[in-house]
């Protein structure tokens, strides 16, 4: 009577002589709306479990780092292995400005953006000179160097214990409200990043970006100012990652390089990008939720989780469709649509 049919890109439901169809395409307007609505009501169900609230807040922040990273990977045609560098820089900039100069969060945001922009601009020529493995190596080393700096200049950065006591963004009397407000703030931050990255990817710049990702030299021959684009796609996502650092500083009110700069944090972010579908912005969100859920559930097992977690991550890479991640389960054989779909009809 009710006939359900799964197509590659849609679900068809036939009942009597009626036909309903549902497009399984994250860009189809109803799907993001449902996704956002689900995320928005999530705290209602988990408000009494603070650790789950923290977990989903962290998941939002992971996604907020992974989304700009996806943008950067496409736009510079290089894999950045140190996305956490600007998280560290942004966080330390915000924390130090707040603690030593007494700037309120709004001013430290401006300061963070400035500091990240200047440092990213200085480092952006690496996208011109280094390709492939060499770029990955450079970006891999930079956060580790910065981590060492936080230890060497321990009187400024407090490398071992971290900086504490920064002013909060919002304070409520009830602790639960604090957690809920942080969740919503992080959700807004992440969705804003998604929105802005999506705008870029779906514009004419998205097509150009895809061309750079495919072949730099040919793109340059077609008039694309590749160098300028690469600087932008290096600097802009770096600033976005830096703002996540600012957010962490003013909500968790503690910031230590040792938490965010080492390799295991970087692995998590990169795995989120891979699990969510490389070069696929929407995928970062389910990827981030999945990874932080796994991380959280393994934590209950005691010290063995440090061994198990990487094994689970490897399993994700091995068993998910390569390059397409979770979304790849939906549409296998679907082209990698990191560039806008262009259609011209004859009639």
């Amino acid at each position: 009577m009710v006939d359900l049919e799964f197509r590659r890109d849609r679900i068809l439901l036939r009942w009597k002589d009626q036909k309903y169809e549902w497009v399984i395409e994250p860009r189809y307007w109803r799907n993001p709306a449902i996704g956002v609505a689900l995320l928005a009501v999530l705290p209602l169900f988990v408000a009494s479990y603070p650790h789950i609230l923290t977990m989903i807040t962290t998941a939002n922040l992971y996604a907020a780092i992974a989304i700009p990273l996806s943008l950067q990977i496409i736009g510079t045609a290089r894999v950045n292995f140190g996305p956490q560098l600007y998280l560290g820089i942004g966080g330390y900039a915000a924390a130090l400005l707040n603690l030593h100069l007494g700037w309120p969060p709004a001013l430290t945001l401006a300061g963070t953006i400035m500091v990240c922009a200047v440092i990213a601009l200085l480092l952006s020529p690496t996208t011109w000179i280094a390709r492939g493995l060499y770029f990955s190596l450079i970006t891999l080393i930079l956060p580790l160097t910065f981590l060492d700096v936080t230890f060497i200049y321990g009187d400024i950065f407090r490398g071992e214990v971290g900086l504490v006591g920064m002013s909060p963004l919002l304070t409520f009397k009830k602790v639960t409200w604090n957690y809920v407000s942080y969740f919503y703030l992080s959700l807004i931050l992440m969705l804003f990043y998604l929105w802005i990255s999506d705008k870029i990817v779906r514009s004419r710049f998205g097509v150009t970006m895809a061309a750079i990702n495919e072949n730099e030299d040919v793109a340059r021959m077609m008039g694309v100012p590749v160098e300028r684009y690469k600087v932008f796609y290096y600097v802009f996502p770096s600033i976005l990652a830096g703002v996540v650092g600012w957010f962490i500083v003013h909500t968790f009110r503690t910031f230590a390089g040792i938490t965010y700069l080492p390799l295991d944090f970087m692995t998590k972010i990169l795995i989120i990008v891979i699990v969510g579908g490389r070069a696929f912005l929407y995928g970062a969100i389910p990827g981030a939720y999945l990874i932080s859920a796994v991380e959280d559930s393994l934590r209950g097992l005691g010290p063995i989780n440090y061994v198990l977690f990487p094994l689970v991550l490897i399993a994700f890479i091995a068993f998910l469709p390569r390059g397409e991640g979770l979304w790849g389960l939906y549409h296998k054989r679907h082209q990698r649509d990191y560039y806008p779909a262009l259609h011209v009809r004859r009639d």
Partner: protein
Amino acid sequence: MLKVHQVTKRFGGLSAVNEVSFSLNEGEVIGLIGPNGAGKTTLLNLICGLYPADGGSIEFLGHNITGMRSNRICHLGISRTYQIPQPFYAMTALSAVAVSVINGKRRPNMSLSDAALEASYYLEFAGLFAKRDTISRDLTLYELRMLELARALATTPKLLLIDEVMAGLNPAESSRALEMIWSAQEQFGITILWIEHVMKIIMSAAQRIVVLQYGRKIAEGTPQEIASDPKIIEAYLGGRYAKNQ
């Protein structure tokens, strides 16, 4: 229009292009021929700015383009196709051409849908409109070459550099490709510098031919002059054959 003066390019100890000079007038079709490894493609790469030249100068429409970045050279009006097709493999034919339309010259206010419309004009011209939503990876060699031509034309060039467009095509396809190039020249009024190994085609198509050997220019002239030049017969068929003639 294009003046190449004493251009030299060395790769280590090898002079791939050695003090080559020639010039192109507007509306001309010039053939660039030579045995394998003569430096034809290197010369093309020098003109469109892929490599910096080690010596000499290249002038285009009064601008000195030696050492200029290829995107600026493209904006001045030089476009090229590749010997080995270099499509954007994961992109559809339409979006690949749209990239050229958007970036080929300064078009600050062009929207994506305008670009798609204009790109579809060039695809139609190259006979690929039906394949507009096909990913470049799935196109045949002939279609890839036509896609490259469409992509090159979409940047609205004044000078088109064609690098062995006939290589690997069957006779029917190459005559279609030849027609396409003729109508491109007619419709868009472009000048063509054409590298080709198929002598029958280049001898009938080009008004003037430049011959390279071991990176040096050994002759320049009309196809008839070139065909009867003993030096060129020697370069292609060997000294003994030239002597026996």
